[in-house]
């Protein structure tokens, strides 16, 4: 099963790396190259041309929008990078949304960017690209350490085609988490229908994150859409990159009736929560027996003693959506070479493996052998290998997702 998926991905990677030999595209660059000829830069000459310049720049600033990756970066990645290249990194955990607004405002004020590499949420990519703050570099093919990227993940985020200017550093997966203290493995719900039956039998024991307040809920909603929307015309725009908000709104009105009918019943018997953490806390408290989760966050929580090890994860048989977050280099950076070198380092085998171990964070690198990288006790904190990646689906178009969330708020929450 796994092989079947990996082969086309590997092929895609081969094509990508073949393309990468060509010089970077000839369009105008929106970034101050600082003595670097971007037009002749390829993944082949990347290290030899970037490294000396980067060392000269000596330092860079790195924004991280997550809270959970801070130990990975601070205690592991940055020391290794500094040791290897002698370049110091100023690490700043930020609120991603606010940081994007700041960068847009800075650009509007024609100020340089305060940051050189930005680990940005996929949900913010569209805003960032359209705000003109992303350097238009083809990172999907340029980085020598990542020749095998899943090119879908590397060029599209939530249906928005950015063409490779944001490189996928981290992949994650929404799933169902259940506490084996209350639900034995094997008897857990495996389909949306079984889940509804369980919720009806055990009122308020199923915790679902409010889709507009947390991705585990949004992902669950999208997975339900993938499952319940059968009409071909309605399915067509799922991965269409050119849906605009009014079209999405019309789609939500026309196509979501079966989905909303399902959630109407489910929500009546479920506890809708205020965020991803909120759902995990309810499961940890024993107040909920089963709920919507992010695989990596649950992995992380278990490592911190915030989620009992009796909790297991699974993907519903109809598939559940996964996502990821990427690295971008701001157009206003003054340290392009250092930024490129650091980005390349973050995509290397070494760091991608470390990230999986520490955070349960998956990789968009298709040739990394994950099974071999993990200790068994850590592997037990991840989704079973027979379900991931086979039941993983990409997230649908972001505008559709927003429109669906609004429908959910109006039809399910407002009436609740």
């Amino acid at each position, binding site marked *: 099963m796994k092989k079947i998926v990996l082969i086309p991905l590997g092929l895609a990677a081969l094509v990508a790396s073949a393309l990468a030999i060509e010089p970077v595209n000839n369009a105008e660059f929106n970034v101050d190259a600082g003595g670097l000829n971007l037009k002749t830069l390829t993944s082949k000459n990347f290290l030899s041309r970037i490294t000396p310049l980067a060392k000269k720049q000596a330092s860079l600033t790195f924004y991280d929008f997550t809270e959970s990756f801070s130990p990975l970066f601070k205690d592991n990645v940055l020391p290794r990078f500094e040791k290897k290249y002698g370049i110091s990194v100023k690490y700043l955990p930020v*609120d991603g*949304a*606010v940081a994007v*607004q700041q960068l*847009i*405002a800075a650009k*509007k004020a024609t100020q340089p960017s305060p940051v050189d590499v930005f680990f940005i949420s996929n*949900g913010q990519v569209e*805003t960032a690209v*359209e*705000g003109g703050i992303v350097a238009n570099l083809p990172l999907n093919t340029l980085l020598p350490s990542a020749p095998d990227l899943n090119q879908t993940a590397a060029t599209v985020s939530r249906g928005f085609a950015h063409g490779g200017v944001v490189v996928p550093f981290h992949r994650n997966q929404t799933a169902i988490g259940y506490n084996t203290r209350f639900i034995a493995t094997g008897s857990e719900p495996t389909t949306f229908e079984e889940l509804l039956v369980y919720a009806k039998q055990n009122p*308020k024991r199923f915790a679902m994150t*409010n889709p*507009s*307040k947390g991705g585990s809920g949004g992902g669950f909603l999208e997975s339900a859409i993938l499952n319940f929307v059968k009409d071909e015309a309605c399915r067509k725009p799922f991965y269409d990159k050119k849906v605009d908000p009014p079209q999405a709104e019309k789609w939500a009105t026309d196509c979501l009736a079966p989905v909303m009918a399902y959630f109407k019943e489910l929500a009546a018997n479920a*506890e*809708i*929560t*205020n*965020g991803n953490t*909120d759902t995990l*806390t*309810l499961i*940890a*408290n*024993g*107040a*909920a027996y089963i709920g919507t989760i992010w695989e990596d966050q649950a992995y992380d929580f278990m490592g911190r003693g915030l989620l009992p090890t009796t909790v297991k994860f699974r993907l519903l048989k109809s598939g559940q959506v996964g996502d990821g977050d990427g690295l971008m280099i701001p157009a206003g950076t003054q340290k392009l070479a250092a930024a490129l070198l650091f980005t390349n380092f973050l995509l290397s085998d070494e760091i991608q493996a470390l990230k999986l171990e520490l955070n349960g964070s998956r990789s968009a690198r298709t040739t990394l052998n994950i099974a071999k990288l993990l200790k068994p006790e850590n592997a037990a904190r991840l989704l079973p290998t027979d379900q991931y990646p086979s039941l993983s689906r990409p997230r649908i178009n972001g505008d559709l997702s*927003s429109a669906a969330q*609004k429908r959910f*708020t*109006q039809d399910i*929450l*407002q009436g*609740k």
Partner: protein
Amino acid sequence: MNLAWKRSLSLWLLLIPGVGYLLVFFGSPLALALLGSVGLETIGTDAPGFTLQYYRTMLTDRIYLDGLWFTLYLSTTSTLLSLLVALPITALIQQSFPGQRLFNTLYKVPLVVPGVVAAFLVLTLVDRGGLLPRAFERLGLGFPQLVRDRLALGVLIGMAWKSVPFMVLVIGGAMAAVPKDVLAAARTLGASSWQAFLKVQVPLALPGITAATLLVFIGSTGAYAIPNLIGPVYPLPLSVHMYQNAFERNQWGLVAAMGSVLSLTSSLVLLAYYQLTKGATNASGKGV
């Protein structure tokens, strides 16, 4: 003539540092917001040009309209709840009792606790599966749902927890300012200490009580962290919509429109207060 001119010049010179500062650093973002709410200014991309679309959305979309009502519900109810708790506490701590100094310092602690911490404390204590429900379950008792509940009881508790000390402080100050002679006079005329409190001290401290109530009300219209973390999933108060639209959807115009509507509501409440208390302040105010 010259003298009057000189005097008004020195008056304005005195006012410039404080009032001038606010005029610049408060007035300009406010102007930006007002322009933004009608599409004439924006912080990210280019401004769309004059439009009332944001106000229309804000005042017709049921999600936002419910948000406005919910904001008012939270502010009004939590303010009344605070007042209900603060008044007897204020009355009691006017008396002397052992440990008064310590109490007077400790009760103010929630003043400095950020809302997000208050929400966290509520969560650990009364969320489903939190410590109190666990303890109640051991005793074989049920525990009401106070988090994510329809009436937002947990939110009200959290907000009141934060504002009660402020009220006690302001109302206590107003009560302490009531001359002791007047209270003693009431006692000589046959009032019990409770009657003297209710019939003399409270009415005389009324300006302080209403001021505290208003300040708490106005402050609570902007409460974000507590309702966001422990409130019901629907409706969301305007403050939460403002954050979501500002940072997740980049809808500055809509945020500005919401901010304007919210400010206007608070201002109306304040103006009503002034109108109602006009006579009272004239009667007790100073001559000059």
